[in-house]
């Protein structure tokens, strides 16, 4: 799952060398602003075929949070 999340991050942030881990968060990635946040949401929704709720969009600010949310939606 982490590999697919990383793919989305690389596409959105236009950085082919970006490496993400569960601890990667909005503080540690430069350029992860509110616009990028929405692009990440859209990218992850499409990559994993899931939908995020309004609250989830507002509260997920780290890769770990995305992993937890994706797991709760049945992604393994």
């Amino acid at each position, binding site marked *: 799952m982490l590999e697919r999340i990383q793919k989305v991050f690389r596409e959105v942030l*236009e950085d082919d060398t970006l490496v993400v881990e569960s601890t990667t968060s909005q503080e540690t990635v430069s350029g992860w602003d509110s*616009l990028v946040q*929405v692009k990440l949401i859209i990218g992850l929704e499409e990559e994993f075929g899931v*939908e995020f*709720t*309004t609250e989830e*969009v*507002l509260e997920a600010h780290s890769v770990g949070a995305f992993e937890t949310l994706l797991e709760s939606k049945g992604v393994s």
Partner: protein
Amino acid sequence: MSAIAKGNRRFVLLAESPAPYSEAQIDTLVEALSDPAKLTPAQWIEIEQIAKKLASVPFNRSDEVEALHTDAARWLRALRLEAAGKKEAAADLLDGIWIGCLGEDRAQRLLAQARNLMGGPQRELAARRLAEVAKVSISHRTLGAVDRLAKQLRKGNLAFRRRTKIALLGSATLEFWLPALRAQCFAWGIDAEFHVGPFGQYQQEILQPGSATELFHPDIVVIASDYRSLGFPQESNDPGGEVQQRVNGLRSLWKQVRERMGAFVVQLNAEIPAQDPYGRLSAALPGGLGRMLRGFNLALWDAERAEPGVAVVDVEQIAAKFGKLAIQKQGWQDAVLWNTAKQYPSSQATPVLTQHLTGVFRAVLGLSAKCVAVDLDGTLWGGVIGEDGLGGIQIGGGPVGEAHAAFQTYLKALAARGIMLAACSKNNREDALAPFREHRGMVLKEEDFAVFVANWESKDQNLKEIARIINIGLDAIVFVDDNPMERARVHQNVPEVEVVELPLDPSGFVAALDEPLYFEALALTGEDRVRGQSIRTNQERAQLESQSGSVDDYLASLEMTVALSPFQPADMARIVQLINKTNQFNLTTRRLNESDVRQLFAGEGNYTQSLRVSDRFGDNGLTGVLIAVREGDALRVHTWLMSCRVMGRRLEEAVLAALGKFARTSGATKIVGEYLPTAKNEVVAKLYSTLGFTATGEPGIFEISTATTQDAPKFLKIIDHTNVDQQIEE
């Protein structure tokens, strides 16, 4: 049918199994790859997944795959080459693999080749493939990929058809539109620079002198005032007043944009919300919201007609086309992302909206297509006329015949609005004409065509011939042919021509021609309506010419009447249209909007002239424009152009004679001419020298004393309105 189903299953199973594969699985793979059946979109993706798995493990039976020549095997080999970094070899293998693929499927194949061409020596080809991707795809992900690759390509030199600066202002987060919009502008040859105004502040950005938008100096300003920001009440006692107040507000913004920024306005109209507490009453009640929004949209179009330099984009129609049903993440709007990020419309829908915006930009920039060249057999009717005969072709009756008739009806309406129709067929001419003359099921008639070419030459030769007869660039032609090989050949040999990817089923022809929005226009002029007729009579003129002794004898036999007049308000739309789309007989190719033209018209001592010409074959309408500005004791020709339909008739001498006369009476001593070369106006490179001007030494600048300008040729009957007071009423 069973072959496809079986193949499908084999690829899925392999795509889902972990690598490395067993010997038995590789046997299955080789067998599946050797099946020549056409691949389904899902199979292309499954093979991609298989290739990825094979990339990470040793694969010692690759020579068995090398030996296969099916699309499936080529696709797998190319993806493995790409994974190994052998990009040029991958690109070679992928060339042409999209032939017969349509839509998103086609986009993915083209994107794969473009990706592999990047960074290699064939940058132009990579750019062409990417452009094609962005024309056929409406997936925001694919367009995002095009945008990223195009950005890399643009670091070097790339040829564009137009440069422009576009400001996006509105009441949603318009940054979300940029990837698709940039990719689509790139696809159509527009080198666009964008500025996005701050969220929700479109009024301030326009009204505030010195705003970031004003300092950006946009050529086009898009006002995306989302229906929510307009603040209509759910029900009103004064619906007319509510509408008027908002339209007036927008009109004053348009005026500011045009006058202070000199930019063209693209105004988005209001979507009618799909969820409405009043239900059907919303439109049925006199003061209901649904009815007010409909009234508002109509009032915007009325305002567009009254205001120069404005085009309204029909968001309501685009939303309906996309589908407003709120199946989450699939429909026009995404409520979650509206609430969290003011995204509008949804990411899936955005490319369709931006596609329409790009269509309008092309119209503003004079890039819309002017001609549709259609194949006959299999395209306008089912069957082959030369083999099946009049009784055997399918047109009019029966399901297939009805599909072709619907396509003909669409083409006939295109011709009526000024898009020239050309037949481009491999046939004996008499065979090709027979259905038009004798078959009762035909909607199109011979006289609907501006040009009719039926012979055994190659289609790319014939398209060049059509361009020559109509006197337009190849890039103004859209080619429609049911045969994918003919289409691929035209793509290859005349890449400027737009090629429509037709589905196998004729029921899909209308949508295939309609959806890329080749023909968007800002206005419909009288000239547009008679253009096809005019091209036909031109061909009769050409016949007369070949029978005449000298060129002048021929020109005299045309019995031409030339009417010259200062610009008139009623002609403004046509004048602006000509200024923005004329490429060949155009000395300076300065593109101007209506407010620019009015300013030049109003300048002290300036001269404007429109030219109309009629002859024994009919009226060509307004086909020439000249603007000269007074500079000291000289009149300087700022803009001079003539429609290609009336070139070669010595009309330029009549234009100059009238200009000379005006110059003398207004006290100017010389006329200064300027030639700015472009890729397309070589034909007038020597015009000033031919007319007796002398070169000044400064490149492209010529001059002539007003005492020495010549009279118009004797065979032209001149009606000169120049001495009438020049005036355009507001």
